[in-house]
Structures are given as structure tokens and as C-alpha cells.
């Protein structure tokens, strides 16, 4: 059973609910920094929840490239496919 990117995105949105304090509607282009206003520690807490859910580890070197929720979904997809 492989997930497609949009299913991954939907699951990530669900995991993110407790972190979405401003209760904004999350789209693929939603940014963690300016839209969700998450600081670096909250981001890591959320990342741990995402990693646990998909049972993956997101390597450090790709973190600097992740600005939006959609990019995280794509990164998880790539890791799951490998």
C-alpha cells in the first residue's frame, strides 16, 4: 500500500492540528514560518509527530529546503519511496 503525495498531505494536515494555533486553513503553499508562525522548537516537535506517524526520519540536510507544508509532503513521499 503506497500513499500518494496528496494522501500524505492530508495526513500531515491532521497531525498539524495541535500546532495550528491560528487555526488557518492549510494549503500546500502554507509556510511554517510566516503563515503558521511556528518557531524552530515547535517545528521540531511537529516534525517528530510527522516522523512517528510515517515511521521515517527526515535527514537534517533537507530541513533548510522545507518552507511549506507541501514541500514536507513531497519530502515524506520521496523518503517512503526509497
Amino acid at each position, binding site marked *: 500500500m503506497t500513499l500518494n503525495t496528496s494522501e500524505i498531505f492530508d495526513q500531515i494536515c491532521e497531525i498539524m492540528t495541535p500546532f495550528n494555533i491560528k487555526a488557518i486553513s492549510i494549503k500546500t503553499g502554507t509556510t511554517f514560518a510566516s503563515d503558521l508562525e511556528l*518557531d*524552530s522548537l515547535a517545528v521540531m*516537535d511537529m*516534525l517528530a509527530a510527522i516522523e512517528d506517524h510515517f515511521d521515517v526520519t527526515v535527514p537534517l*540536510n533537507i530541513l533548510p529546503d522545507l518552507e511549506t507544508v507541501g514541500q514536507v509532503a513531497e519530502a515524506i513521499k520521496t523518503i517512503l519511496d526509497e
Partner: protein
Amino acid sequence: MHEPTPTLDPSHPRRYADFSTLPEALDYAAGGKRGVNFYSPRGELESSITYAQIRDRAHEIGRRLVHFGIKRYSRVALIAETNEDFVCYFLGCQYAGLLPVPLPLPTSFGGRDGYTEQLHQQMKSCEASVALSAAYMLPLLDEATNGLGMEFIGSPDTFEAQASLAEIKNVKLPEVHPEDLAYLQYSSGSTRFPHGVAVTHSSLVSNCHGIGVEAMDVNDDDRVVSWLPFYHDMGLVGMLLSPITCQVSIDYIATEAFARRPIQWLKLISRNKGTICSSPTFGYEICARRANSTDLEGLDLSSWRVAGIGADMIRPDVLEMFAEKFKDCGYNKKAFMPSYGLAECTLAVSFAPTFSGYTVDLVSEDVLNGDVKSVKEYKKNGNGANYREVVNCGKPLSSYNLEIRDEKDVVLDDREIGRIFLKGKSVMVGYYMDEAATKQCLSEDGWLDTGDIGYMADGSLFIIGRIKDMIIINGKNHWPHDIEWAVEKLPELRSGDSAAISIPGKNNEEVPAILVQCRKRDEEERVDLENRIKSEVQAVIGKTPEVILVPPRSLPRTSSGKLSRVKARRQYLEGQLT
């Protein structure tokens, strides 16, 4: 079966950092059974290496570096991952007489350009000739070294493929002297104009001796458990080099693993009976906030004897929250050990006594905001509202002379507030290749102006504020001009239009704020500008600031026309700037 290195080692008498150089300290530690252990994010032992094995590998790396032809005292940039490679390369540079320069890892989402630019500036400012990182980080390192004339860029594997063991067999290692530089520490200076603190062997071992003997009183049962990054002085000196110089076994989890699952740190302390485990305040905070009832089950923190706290302002409310959360797990709040230090003094300056908990002075707001210069009248049992609890950071190590001085450099009495000056063996020789910056804080007769504000009371040091303009968020120092420059890049703003400050939040934590002179009247445009300012600042410091739009020309200036952040902050807090 895979076992971590032991805590106890009766076969090897302990020496307390009474060495003259770091290689000498490692050579001695290599005579015992202790060493360091690395744990996975989920708490499994991933690798374990004794000091003897570290010495052998570092020796080999040292010979490789010399064989490669890297000139003595050259700078070797190391992306500081929490792993064996970093430890062995850092120490390998010591045997080769080279200066390792630990560089940071990414800490959060986004900010690729900012990260590679930071690495670039640091390597450029010390003219590094070698840059090493794990293979998976190489694309970022390649980007960061772009335009710098490097002799080698690669991973430990590619470097070690340069020569066979037979080729390096007879390579001679240079003699290392106590006054030689041992490494560079980048934790001060701005990201645009970084300057590395130059640390000599003699400064280092002197500081390690003070930490091991006077501060921690290291004994047989001691074991260090740490998540602190090696690119930070508290992680490098406090949790790696000083345990090596006192032959203590260490357990590590990576910083990025701690940030995701902080409870793993406590679980490791529980499992391996950790005794010396230090952190900035925010580390205690995220443990207390994130631990749930399942995490607490079976957790035994009764071995923990030195819970060092340093690196940022110490917040008593957080310590109370931590102690309350973990008291049923055997955590004794007497373990809290406040300290004061800075990279310019290698690491450590003062420590509260061991196993005595923390104590505070209640200091009036009039004193904190600078209206009153003395805490002689401080109230012992004030009722909160207009007082801040200031933590006692203990007595300076005996190798220091310490003075509190006023603006005219006059030495002040007990309980009078001024700038903290230090002199002693652990004070840096200067910022590397930056005479101007060195002269600004280090006098010819060796007194360092820390720029921090505080007072002495009965021999103990109290810190009122760190360098007056600096903004510290989650343990990271940010200089206001870095934030202001980022904001002033926006097309409608000009240089001098903004002032970055920190303001007290609900729980006395530091909240970043930026005051921006705004010419716009239209509400929608103002909101749009605020949002863009937020994202610019977020990109620099990793946290969204409070943005306060103020009228044009309302930010206060000094007589020479320079922005006065201290005045701006005060005016804002007094409600005069809106």
C-alpha cells in the same frame, strides 16, 4: 553484546585536567576504559568508543592531515555533528597542530540561504583551508565554500581515501605547546561579521580544571549525559573537552534528536545513571512541557547531581516547573546549578555550589531598567509585580579576577550594578584575525569587558542582563543589527528605520520585538508590511517577533545620530512609542 563505556574505572587514577595541552589530556584518558557513547533518536546505543580508540583514530587523522600537506595552524572547518567523526577529527587536528573550527548544523525548517551564508562567512573570516562534513551534508557545504580557496572539501571517507595507512605510517606529528591555539569558537559576533574566539591549550585546560575540581567536584560515580551541540561552547567545552580532561564517560544524543524528542535525554540519564547533565534554561523547559504521563513511567532521575544551567538568562519559573514535573521521578531540585560563562572566557566563569539548588535576589524594576544603579535597597520578600527574580550564579572560579565597573571604569562595591570585567588564564587571547574587535573588549593588561551587566553580593555573581542589546532566543544569541538589516531590505524601509529589541513576555521569557518606522497610513498596507517584516525576522532568528509600527522619525538617537536601542526599548515599555 554492545555495552556503553563504563562509569567506574578503578584501574585508572583520576587526574583533574592538570595537563598542559589537550593531546596530553587525551593521551592520559586513553590509559583507562572510559569513553564516549552515541545514542539514536529513539535511545538505542549506536556506537561506543573508548578514549584509547579515540586517541588512536585521532592520531591517525593527525598524521593524515600532516601528510596531506596542510600547513601548521591552518583552520579546519568541521560541520559539528554529534558523532564519532567529529570528536576524532576535532582531536586529530590537535595532534596535527591545526585549528578545528566547529560549524553549526541546520536547526529547523527553511532558511537554506541564511544557513549556507552563515557557514560561508565563518569559514571566510578565519580563512579556513579544509572543510569537512558527513557525505549527506556535502551539497550544502559545497555551496557554502563557493568562492573560498579551499585545499580540501569532503567527508571523512573521501579524506581518508587520499592516503593509505602505509603511506602515513612514519609521518611525524608536531610538538604542541600550551600557548598554541587549540581551536576557534564561533559563538559571538554577528552573522554578517562573525569573529571566532581563539582558544589556547592553556586557557582550555585551565577552564577544564576549574570546572572539574572547583565547580563539579568530579567523583568516581560521575557520568555525563548530553544533547548539547559541539558547535556551542557549552557543548564543546562543558560536555566534551572537560569530561575528557577529567576522564569521565559521556553519553550523547544528537541535538536534533533532542529537539524532536527531549524526553530521550532524561531516559538516557535514567538508564545510565547520569550525574552531570547541563542545559540552557529552554532545554529544561521543553522537557517539562512535552513529557506526558507515559514518559514519566519508570523514569529514575535520582542519580542526577549536577543539573548545570547556563548560556542564557536563567528563569526560575522554568526550573520550578521542571522540578515539579519530575519530582516523583526522583529528581532533586538541589541538583540545579546555575552558572555564568561566555565563549570569550573559553566557557565557564562562575558556578553556584554543587547540590544546593538555586537562590535568587528579588530585584526591583527600577534597577533592571537602569533608573537605579544599586540593589542595596533590594527587597527580600517583595510581592512579585515590580520585582524580578535574579538568579545567583555563584562564585567565580579561583583563576579569575572579577570587577564590576561603572561607565567611567571605576570599580564598584558589593551590590552596585555595572559591567562585568574579567581577567585570568581562561580569558581569550583575542578574536582570531580581528584586532579591531579584540581591542574593543580586551585591554592591553588582559581585562575582558564582557559587556554583561550584573553585581556581586557576598562573593557571588548576579547577572541582570546579557550584553545590553543582544537578543537571546531559545539559547541562541542574536545581534539586533542582523535583524534590522534583514528588515531594512524591504523596499519601503530605509536604513535606520528599525530597532530590534527583546521585551519580557508573559512568563518573563525574552520575546523578540522590532520597532519599525512606518510611513504608510492604509490599514491593509500596514498589515501587509507587518507580515513581511515578520517573515524577514523569522528567517534570521527562527521565531516570529512582535512587530510595532511607529511614526516616522520617532526612534530615539544618540548625540552622534546612532540609534539608541536601550532608549527605544524603555520608551516602548513605558508606552511612549506606539
